[in-house]
């Protein structure tokens, strides 16, 4: 049975299910319990800055739900060490922007240990992290750095687009034997939608066709799936049939699904909230002009943010973020 839950609540539920099932799953991060010593009378926990993990320390105790110091290098590095020695840690990196403070354990350890060791280790680690603009959180708390983790061989990068997708994909990420960076777009965290009860794992890898169409393919993921839907609705009224793909997983990438859609429509827009250079959008456009060359009826358009940091002011932030209108414009430009 499905009920309506926010994405945050769906994530909470996925963590709880995984932790109940597998005693090696632990949760660690800054304020994931949120309130320090649970034993103090009358003191309640916050469950993270966004409240996503509220209640988990109550059920699983402080041995398995650990507030860490503000020390991301130590937090993520320790989680990697725990992952190669018997635990299956879920480490929360509060904002994806903080990759800057903990890249080494991801780039040089988690991503490479298995390979460097000749396949003789595995790193079943999930790093949950919040990304994206839209809350006036400014340049250091609004980035969409999933392109950075996608570019690192040895990591997987997953990004859900709805509460149900978040629950299913997070369950798969936690159970995955490779290190997964699980991105939680700020803008969908409070979004509410139907979420199945119980286990509802969604495999990492295959993309999802959100909507079938025949004239143009809109490739999207995370918060941009909603943009694609808005754009598709507008295109529909104008007589253009748009197909929407939700990638779900950026690494691995479902090349076949992308190429199949391109083959069908001959035209593609990739919608990505990150900045343009070396982005997922451009990565996919490159795939199209290589393996999908014969299908192309028009330029592949990338709808992204501009090559700038994220500004604070609301008007600027709106100008920064890709919009449904930008998607329509891109379709228009294709001719």
């Amino acid at each position, binding site marked *: 049975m499905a009920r309506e839950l926010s994405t945050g609540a769906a994530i909470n539920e996925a963590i709880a299910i995984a932790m109940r099932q597998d005693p090696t799953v632990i949760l660690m991060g*800054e*304020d994931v319990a*949120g*309130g*320090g*010593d649970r034993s*103090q009378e*009358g*003191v*309640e*926990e*916050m469950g993270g*800055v966004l409240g996503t993990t509220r209640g988990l320390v109550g059920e699983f105790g402080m041995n398995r739900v650990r*507030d*860490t*110091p*503000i*020390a991301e*290098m*130590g937090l993520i590095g320790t989680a990697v060490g725990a992952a190669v020695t018997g635990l299956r840690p879920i480490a929360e990196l509060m904002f994806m*922007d*903080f990759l*800057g*403070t903990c890249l080494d354990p991801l780039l040089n350890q988690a991503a490479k240990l298995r390979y460097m060791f000749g396949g003789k280790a595995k790193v079943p680690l999930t790093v949950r992290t919040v990304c994206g603009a839209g*809350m*006036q*959180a*400014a*340049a*250091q*708390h609004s980035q969409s750095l999933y392109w950075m983790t996608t570019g690192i061989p040895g990591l997987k990068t997953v990004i859900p687009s709805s509460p149900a997708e978040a629950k299913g994909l997070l369950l798969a990420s936690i159970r995955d034997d490779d290190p997964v960076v699980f991105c939680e777009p700020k803008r969908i965290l409070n979004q509410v939608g139907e979420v199945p009860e119980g286990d509802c794992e969604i495999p990492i890898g295959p993309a999802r066709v959100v909507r079938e169409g025949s004239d143009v393919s809109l490739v999207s993921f995370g918060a941009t799936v909603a943009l694609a839907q808005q754009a598709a609705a507008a295109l529909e009224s104008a007589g253009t049939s748009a197909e929407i793909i939700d990638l779900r997983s950026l690494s691995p990438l479902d090349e076949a699904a992308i190429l199949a859609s391109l083959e069908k429509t001959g035209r593609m827009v990739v919608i990505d909230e990150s900045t*343009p250079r070396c982005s997922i959008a451009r990565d996919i456009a490159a795939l199209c002009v290589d393996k999908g060359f014969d299908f192309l009826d028009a330029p592949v358009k*990338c709808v*992204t943010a*501009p*090559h*700038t*940091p994220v*500004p*604070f*002011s*609301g*008007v*600027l932030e*709106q*100008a*920064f973020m890709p919009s449904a209108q930008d998607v329509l414009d891109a379709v228009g430009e294709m001719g």
Partner: protein
Amino acid sequence: MTSRRKLGSMRRVEGCAATTRGFQMDFSRDDLIRIYRQMRTIRRFEEKLQELVASARIGGFMHLYAGEEAIAVGVCAHLADDDHVGSTHRGHGHCIAKGVDVKAMMAELFGRASGTNKGKGGSMHIADMDKGMLGANGIVGGGIPLVTGAALSAQVLGTGKVAVGFFGDGATNQGQFHESLTMAANWKLPVLYVCENNGFGEFTPTDFVVPVKHIAERAASYGMRAVIADGMDFFDVFEKAGEAIEVARAGGGPTLLECKTYRFHGHFVGDPTPYRNKEEAEEWIQNRDPLDIFERKALETGLLEAGDLRRVDLEIDELMRTAVEEAEQGPLPDPQDVLTDVYVRYEPWHES
């Protein structure tokens, strides 16, 4: 060693011995009023922000400095405009104490083109290079290497400037803290590291995540001078910061100054603080308010009367009113400006 101090008279102290012995402080009536004005301005600014966020007139992440005023004001009183300060996510107090224009700050928080940062920064990035303010910083610990670099500039160029880095207790767990203090100690850089120990990092009590009783103990890892001050008492902070800054300017190297304090509000505006002990909070807020402590001690000098300070209060209320009014009426940025100020020069530039 004792010496007579006036605010603003402390730059370029030559030949001062690197000593930690106290010096007598002697303030004029004007000094005291100036100090009070700064502290009260910070307090009112934060109170105003709380209102504005609650009524959704401004947005973004907002961390208030109320309760910690004595630290910013006590330290910055020793600094000139060309001494550099680095700050944190909780930066409004440091900005005001360093002389950044309050109206321009307010305009920034309203996201206006008339703001300190042209609306591009917001609360966590308010900066003013002309005032030596290297910016609030959204990265915990991120400001520490920046001021270390400012101190390096001062040393390499021999300018006699000093740099000050403010940061929280939680930030001392960051690698950036450790690496910066190591470098500063090796090179005897002219820098003062001010830890504002308010007992929490977000919702987590300091003693849950910092394995020593006093942050000052961490200086042992760098063979660095360390001093603890009562962060609620302007005079204590002023004295200890003054000595450390003298040492720094005289080539005696960096100091870690721990100021014990408390934040009067939640971690961010909207935080209901379920995690903190109510009695403890009451005790700090009722009995250890840095403004009350300052007022009491200032009145004890006999140089001024309560009425003098109440006049300042009114003046500041008026300042806040007009600051909000002007900010709200200030020009919004042109959406096209999202593209400017990324680089000094970037060619060929192609906007995609």
